[in-house]
């Protein structure tokens, strides 16, 4: 399709190069420098999509991120929904189509890369328009560390959209010189295509850099497509400009209706004639520039409709050019289907609309004034102030470390913006004790013309009889003046409530054009000052950010650290099925060909109970506790006495919180008078080290003790089962492994070909067992020695599932599975592990609380399903029948729940552990567990189901 609406010359596009693209399946062309919107407008295409609820045709209504009309889906080169045609830079091969409010995510994984960079600066300048560039130059010349970010493809801001001059030359020459000067400063980072989308505490700003989006299919694969910059700035200068505000009138949503400033952007930046016959409707002087600029390139400007009774001092300028100016008039409505054909214009006197007439046009430009882009200031909790004269919210206070400049503060002339930018930067530098450079010249701007005062007009009264139902406030939500009136009629007063009731400001554009209009119209309907309605809260992100960009490299395997033991490769080679235990990858079981988990676990359990098994227990938490007061600390933190432990011995211990509830358990090895090795659960390792350090630092700083994690300094291999002694004896011939020389709950050091090894008689299965500790460098060698020595006995590696079955058969609880933070040692049947001798330890006083003495507390018991078949689902509730055999009426009282449940090779039946109210009193009773809609009878037993006498631990 040919460019019927392209100017003969000018614009920031490369006319020598033609790009081909498709939109809604039709072929189009454009040039480098175009956006998708400008290329479509250049081809005469105004309608982009239809609206979300009403299906009304919608077109390009603005030139950048504030546009509520041009929502598109990109299909090629990679599907991406919900983009604005006004912000999509054109590239060859682009395929897109208009969206009625909702897009479609790609169904294939995104192969692009995303990353993040941290960057620290003295001054971060957001926006490379005149004020931002002036601020950045001032800071750069002072030698400060500066970052300048700007969301457009090139610097210049509003200067890209106009014909302003500086130092007697086109202003963009100064922009180019400023950019070149910034590049000379080694401490300046200048990023275009980078949107600062959130400002947070203490100078933290997030920005999204679109690095390859504009390259389409030619984007180099090795470059991150988008990058999140995490700036930490000592001071921030917000120079984000202003968004033009429309005026609401009837049928104000047709394609061909756009903001006056946007038309200037399309003309000057993209060389696009957005129409042939234009009507300009304004409340302020800025739209006169659009009228005159369009006239100069041959657009027939039918009329400037100025709502101000006296019009503007610029009326004469227009009339000299032959443009008719209608002061004291408004646009009351429009005609047209997929493009505006007529503007209905009527006199406007004292707020009353008179009789009107239709003026033919294919372009209707609107300006209701300018809203400073205060988003980043407001996100940083800056308070806004309503300016009656401008009809806009401005920064209403000074913030530490964040200042606003340029048109974002309401300054409207070029010279004023430059001077303001420099002044703000100098003040920021002064606060950082950085001296400005002596030579800090700004270009000379033409003297500012004082504009005729604007009129604040939110909407034109609806004379169509439709009562505001086609007066669109938020085009993206199809929300109208009638919707606001309905909200106010329903009694809503808060602007936050009205936003949620009408959905205004909740769409893709987050209310960039509709937010302040809503405040104004609401105030008008309520008859209160606009200052009192205020605005809704500005929240990040300023423009939408893809989750992929926020995730960056932290996806897939890099989402969370994976911890593996020194034997991981061996486990993989052995065909282990892994499970996640916190961040650890642990072998769950080692299936042999044809085995499922149940078969593998029954085989592994049988090996450990009748022969010998071996486990990689390296993930167990290990804390080295050293110092003259080490025993004192452990006595205060464990429920039982640790100080009486002899060097060379091991003791099981329980730790509680001050509330008396169990937080962890494990064994303690006394290595020396002043040194202990504390073993914690895998999941509790970090928490227990924190716990120890907290008490030492905050309550007992007088204790001479140090704690450090040694979890990763030792691998641990429990060798378990009646034949474990044979295996250990064979591998460590220097060690006397007899019960007499090496009794249960003791440890011994030895060496294996010069490598130090520690052996401990600790059992988490009830069987004779030796734990082997060695430096991880020797893990594979030692493990393979143990396997080799165990071969005659059928040594069987087993995983966490078998470990759980073996420990549950012995009634050993897993803290965090069989407990939930409301369980005391006594509830677990471990009153024996609670010292009566110690005057105090953490948790002791709570055991005497009445609630902890209640005989109906939930206690750990065993359950045996009487059908000898059902494996009770963990988490199942437990109920009981009345003596007469009936269930109690609903709600049926819950006695407790199943905490662990397995099939037992040893018992040849399933079993479970459970927390049951008054459980120990119920041993021998039958209670019921609902499973899949039937009540399974279970016998309550003691928690130790295998070897309750403890006869096996010595082999």
């Amino acid at each position, binding site marked *: 399709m040919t460019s019927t609406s392209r100017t003969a010359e000018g614009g920031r596009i490369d006319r020598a190069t033609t790009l081909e693209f498709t939109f809604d399946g039709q072929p189009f062309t454009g040039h480098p420098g175009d956006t998708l919107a400008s290329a479509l407008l250049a081809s005469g295409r105004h309608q982009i999509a239809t609206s979300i609820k009403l299906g009304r045709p919608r077109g390009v209504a603005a030139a950048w991120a504030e546009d509520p009309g041009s929502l598109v889906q990109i299909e090629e080169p990679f599907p991406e929904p919900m983009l604005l045609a006004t912000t999509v830079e054109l590239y060859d091969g682009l395929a897109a189509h208009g969206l009625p409010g909702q897009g479609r995510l790609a169904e294939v994984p995104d192969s692009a890369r995303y990353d993040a960079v941290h960057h620290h600066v003295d001054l971060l300048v957001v926006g490379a328009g005149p004020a931002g560039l002036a601020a950045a130059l001032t800071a750069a010349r002072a030698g400060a560390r500066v970052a300048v970010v700007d969301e457009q493809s090139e610097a210049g801001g509003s200067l890209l959209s106009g014909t302003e001059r500086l130092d007697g030359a086109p202003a963009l020459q100064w922009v180019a010189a400023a950019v070149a000067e910034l590049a000379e400063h080694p401490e300046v980072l200048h990023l275009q295509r980078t949107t600062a989308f959130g400002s*947070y*505490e*203490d100078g*933290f700003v997030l920005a999204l850099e679109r690095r390859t989006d504009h390259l389409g299919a030619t984007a180099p694969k090795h470059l991150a497509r988008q990058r999140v910059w995490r700036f*930490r700035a000592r001071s921030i200068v917000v120079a984000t400009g202003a968004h033009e505000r429309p005026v609401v009138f009837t049928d104000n949503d047709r394609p061909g209706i756009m903001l006056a400033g946007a038309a200037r952007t399309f003309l000057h930046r993209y060389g696009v004639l957005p129409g042939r016959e234009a009507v300009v409707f304004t409340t302020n002087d800025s739209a006169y520039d659009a009228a005159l600029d369009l006239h100069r390139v041959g657009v027939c400007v039918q009329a400037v409709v100025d709502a101000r009774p006296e019009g503007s001092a610029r009326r004469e300028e227009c009339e000299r050019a032959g443009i008719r100016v209608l002061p004291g008039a408004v646009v009351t409505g429009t005609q047209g289907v997929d493009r505006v054909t007529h503007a209905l214009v009527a006199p406007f006197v004292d707020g009353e609309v008179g009789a009107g007439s239709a003026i033919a046009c294919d372009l209707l430009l609107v300006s209701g004034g300018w809203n400073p882009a205060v988003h980043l200031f407001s996100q940083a909790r800056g308070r806004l102030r309503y300016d009656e004269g401008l009809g806009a919210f401005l920064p209403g206070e000074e913030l530490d470390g964040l200042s606003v400049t340029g048109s974002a503060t309401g300054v409207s002339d070029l010279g004023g913006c430059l001077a303001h930018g420099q002044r703000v930067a100098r003040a920021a530098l002064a606060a950082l004790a950085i001296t400005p450079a002596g030579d800090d010249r700004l270009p000379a701007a033409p003297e500012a013309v004082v504009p005729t005062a604007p009129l604040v007009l939110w909407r034109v009264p609806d004379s169509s009889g439709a009562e505001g139902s086609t007066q669109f406030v938020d085009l993206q939500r199809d929300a109208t003046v009638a919707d606001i009136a309905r909200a106010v009629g329903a009694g809503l007063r808060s602007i936050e409530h009205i936003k949620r009731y009408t959905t205004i400001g909740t769409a893709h554009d987050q209310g960039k054009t509709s937010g302040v209009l809503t405040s104004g119209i609401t105030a008008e309907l309520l008859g209160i000052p606009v200052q009192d309605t205020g605005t809704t809260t500005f929240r990040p992100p300023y423009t939408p950010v893809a989750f992929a960009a926020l995730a960056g490299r932290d996806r897939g395997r890099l989402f969370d650290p994976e911890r593996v033991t020194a034997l991981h490769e061996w486990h993989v080679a052995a065909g282990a099925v892994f499970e996640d235990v916190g961040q650890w990858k642990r072998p769950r079981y080692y299936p042999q060909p044809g085995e499922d988990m149940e078969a593998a676990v029954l085989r592994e359990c049988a090996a450990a109970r009748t022969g010998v098994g071996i486990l990689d227990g390296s993930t167990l938490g290990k804390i080295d506790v050293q110092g003259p007061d080490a025993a004192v600390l452990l006595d205060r933190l464990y429920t039982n006495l640790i100080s009486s432990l002899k060097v060379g011995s091991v003791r099981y211990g329980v730790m509680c919180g*001050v*509330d008396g509830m169990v937080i962890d358990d494990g064994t303690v090895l006394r290595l020396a008078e002043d040194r202990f090795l504390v073993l914690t659960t895998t999941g509790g390792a970090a928490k227990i080290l*924190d716990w120890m*350090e*907290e008490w030492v*630092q*905050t*309550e007992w*700083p007088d204790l001479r003790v140090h704690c450090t994690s040694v979890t990763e300094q030792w691998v641990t291999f429990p060798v378990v089962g009646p034949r474990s002694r044979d295996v250990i004896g064979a591998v460590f011939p220097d060690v006397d492994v007899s019960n007499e020389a090496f009794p249960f709950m003791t440890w011994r050091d030895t060496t294996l070909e010069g490598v130090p090894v520690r052996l401990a008689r600790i059992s988490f299965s009830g069987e004779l067992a030796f734990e082997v500790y060695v430096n991880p460098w020797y893990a594979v060698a030692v493990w393979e020695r143990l396997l080799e020595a165990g071969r005659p006995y059928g040594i069987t590696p087993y995983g966490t599932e078998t470990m759980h079955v073996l420990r549950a058969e012995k009634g050993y609880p897993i803290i965090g599975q069989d407990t939930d933070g409301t369980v005391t040692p006594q509830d677990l049947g471990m009153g024996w592990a609670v010292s009566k001798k110690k*005057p*105090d330890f953490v948790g*002791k*006083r*709570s055991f*005497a*609380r*009445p609630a902890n003495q209640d005989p109906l507390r939930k206690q750990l018991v065993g359950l045996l399903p009487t059908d000898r078949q059902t494996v009770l689902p963990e988490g199942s509730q437990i109920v009981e029948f009345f003596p007469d055999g009936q269930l109690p009426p609903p709600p049926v009282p819950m006695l407790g729940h199943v905490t662990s449940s397995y099939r037992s090779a040893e018992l040849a039946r399933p079993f479970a552990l459970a927390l049951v109210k008054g459980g120990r009193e119920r041993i021998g009773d039958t209670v019921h567990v609902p499973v899949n809609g039937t009540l399974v009878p279970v016998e309550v037993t003691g928690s130790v189901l295998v070897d309750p006498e403890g006869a096996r631990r010595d082999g």
Partner: protein
Amino acid sequence: MQLIECPWCGPREEVEFSYGGQAHVPYPDDPGGLSDEEWAHYVFFRDNTKGRFAERWNHSIGCRRWFNAIRDTATYRFERVYRLDDPKPVTP
């Protein structure tokens, strides 16, 4: 993302820190000598101040030291940080 001033390391990002609740709530000298109610106050009861609040913080992903801070719970602003052996500052 706030910066929190560790008395030992200087300002660091808030994700490096963990919160430790109200400061200056010492472990009782003689828990056994307390009534159930007095003990319950130590275990379960803490102030819920709006405004300046003395709190415990731990630079847990840093130097791992505990310290105290006066923080405004309404603005999140840390007004000062101090070592555990410093007395509680007098705040206006």
